[in-house]
Each structure stands twice: as C-alpha cells, then as structure tokens.
C-alpha cells in the first residue's frame, strides 16, 4: 500500500478505536465531546484523501508478439 493509502488505513483504524471508546468503560461525558470532534475530523480527512487519490496506469514497453 502506498504511503497515502497507508495513511488512510491508519486513519480508518484510529477512527474505529475512537468509535469503540464510546462503547467502552473509559467513556466519560467530559471527554466525549473532544473524542467526537476527533472522530468527525478523521472521517472528513478519510473522505478527502480517498477522493484525492488517483491510480497510476502505465502501459509496459515490452512487446508480447511472437517476434519479440
């Protein structure tokens, strides 16, 4: 996975952890707002990164006919 894609996966994992926090024992209402803001930012970052990524298509120079 490319560095940008890796970053997307890292962000996705981080978002999952944040979401899990809301269902876990560590949850407190005082911290919830900050955590929610973090989660919201991550989701927006993931969307932004995904929409920005383009594939790199290269036609190989090698010829595959019988003469090559």
């Amino acid at each position, binding site marked *: 996975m490319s560095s940008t894609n890796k970053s997307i996966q890292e962000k996705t994992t981080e978002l999952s952890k944040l979401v899990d926090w809301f269902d876990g024992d560590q949850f407190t*209402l005082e911290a919830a707002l900050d955590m*929610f803001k973090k989660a919201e930012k991550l989701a927006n970052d993931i*969307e932004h990164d995904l*929409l920005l*990524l383009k594939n790199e298509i290269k036609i190989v120079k*090698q010829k*595959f006919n019988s003469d090559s």
Partner: protein
Amino acid sequence: MEKPTNQPIFKTYGMDIVQQVFSVSDFIAVVNQTFEYAYPNVEVEGEVASFKVNQGKYVFFDIKDSGGSIACFMTVWQLRVPIEDGMKVIVSAVPKLTRWGKFSLTVKSIRPSGAGAIKKSFELLKEKLDKEGLFAVERKRRLPSIPNHVAVISSTTAAGYADFIKILSDRWGGVKIDVANVQVQGIDAADQIIKAVEYFNQQQKLPEVIVIIRGGGSADDLSTFNDEPLVRSIGASRIPTLVGVGHETDESLVDLVADVRASTPSNAAQILVPDKHEIIRSTQSQVESLVPRIIQVVDQQKAAVKSYPTKILEKIDSAIDQQTGAISNLKNVLIQLDPNNVLKRGYVIVRGLIEVGSRIEIESNKAIIKAEVINVVNK
C-alpha cells in the same frame, strides 16, 4: 538449381518461348515456393480423420469434407487443444508437396470450429487438467484486500479493458497499474498472454496480483482462454491471478485455473478494490452513530440528577423513621420503668428506716399505708 537441359521451343504470336525442364527435386522445390508465395498461411476448415500421434512428437491426421481430404502434419507442441476424430476444426497451415510427391498441409495451429467441436474440446481438456489437480480449491490463493501494485493483461483497445479501468478508478485510487497490451483473440493471443504472464512473474518487484481481462465475444473469440499452455501458465504463476473474461455465463478453463474468477471485467474491478464511496459513507455513518450514544448518556445523567431530591427525601424519611423507632423503643423502656406501672403489677414502695420499732410508709397501687416495723430478718 540446375540449368534446364532439353529446351523445346514453342512459337506463340511470333515469339519464341523456351519450355523449361526441371529435375524432380527442383520441381518440388518450385511448387513449394509457389505455394509459399500463393498461400503463405492458409486456413482450412474440415473434419478430423485418422488422428494419430507418432513417437509422442509427430501428429498426423486428415482433414476432410464431403468433397475431399487433405493430409496434415504438425508437432505435439503445436497442438494446444485436444483433438479427436470427427471433430470439426480450422487449421492454419502452409501447403506443401513432400519429396515423395504427396500433398499435405504443415499445420501451424489448429482450433475447434463450431459450437459442438469447441464444447467437446473444452470438455476433454477440462477433464484432463482437472485430473492433474489444476483446478483444485486447495490451490486457490487469496488476493490482497487492497492491492498497491497490480498487473493487467488485456488489449488496451478492448471495451472490457475500458470497463475495468473505469470501474477501478471510480472505486479506488493510489494503485500502481502496469498494463501488458496483448491480443485477446486470434491465433497469437494465447502466446502473447503467456509471455505477459511470464514477464510479470520475472519482475524484480512482483505485482501483488495479475488481472486478465477480456470482454464478451463468440465461443470462437473466447477459445483463446481454453488454450492448454495458457491455462498451465496461469496455473504456474507465482503471482495470484484474477480473471475477468467474457460475460457472466461464459466459462473458460482460464476461469477455472485462476485464483479468483470474476464474471465480467467490471466485476474484476469490484473484486480487486473496495469502493471508496462506500468507505466514506461507512466512516460518516460511524461518526453519526456517536451522536445518539452521547445523547443517551446525557439523558441518563439528567435523569440521575433529577432523581437526587427524591433520594435525599427518601434518606431523610428513612433517618426519621429510624429515629422515631429508637424514640419509640426508649419510650417503651421508660414506660416499663414508670413506678406507677410497677405498683400496678402488685409491687409496693416502702419509705422509712427498716429497723424494729421504726415507723414506715407503704405505697401500693391503690393506697398509702402507715406502719411500724416489728421484725427485720436479713436474707
């Protein structure tokens, strides 16, 4: 070539024409040159008869129709699909006059012709390769969940390739895609695809998956993907393979040998990468699902705070009840200790000195009695 010997002279329109005389071998050579010039590559369709393989190397058969029959020769290495007597085929060949004066076709390639023959050949090869375990489920490898480097083998002008690239790009980005542009139908197609598979397998940095793409076509068009060497080449690939050839209903041997089969080129793109729009929806939905969770906790805490006065009153009530109970007990004790109550139970209170001759006062429940002590006995 030797120079012609006897040279009879014919006169035509006043011109002299020398009639050339050949030796036998020269004539055979000239005929073959003429064939090569006139038919450098001829395709002939007919039914196979007298099919046999000699010494495991040389293949002989006749190709015939109701009007005639031609002997054919080829090597087993050129035989890429199973052939048997009665099968209708198209041979791609060079006509040749042998040194024994027999006319034959030197076959470069042979392929079944017509639905019946194609199906028969397909079934024969399928059975053979299946027995070898090439299609076994245990051989199948998983594709990477999100590949970073993909090799595509297809014709870049084919509609199937365009569909694949479009769907792939709509769904995901950031993938390095190396494309081997090959023919996907015709005599050379199978060899070109084999070379492309080998090319990618020889790269220093291997792609994570090879995708073979071709859109729909006739059974004849798709017969490339039932070519035995091609099937074996894909089966031997070090790199996991994904094949999207033809339409949903088409089944080729390449489909069977691939690690993963896609029903169409578009489906191959769907299998290869996740849909970024779905991931975006999913992440947004995850975040949105947190709001009700927070609201639920806030509601719970509000309800808890609201219940505090009630709890305090309940505690005060409980304390009062406890105190009331204690007072009540004390009252009972006091009642029990009240002298009047003791007198009611029959006891009396004696006041004065307890000695003989002393005057004392005795109080009972109902009277106060004055008396004199006449005797005292110690216990």
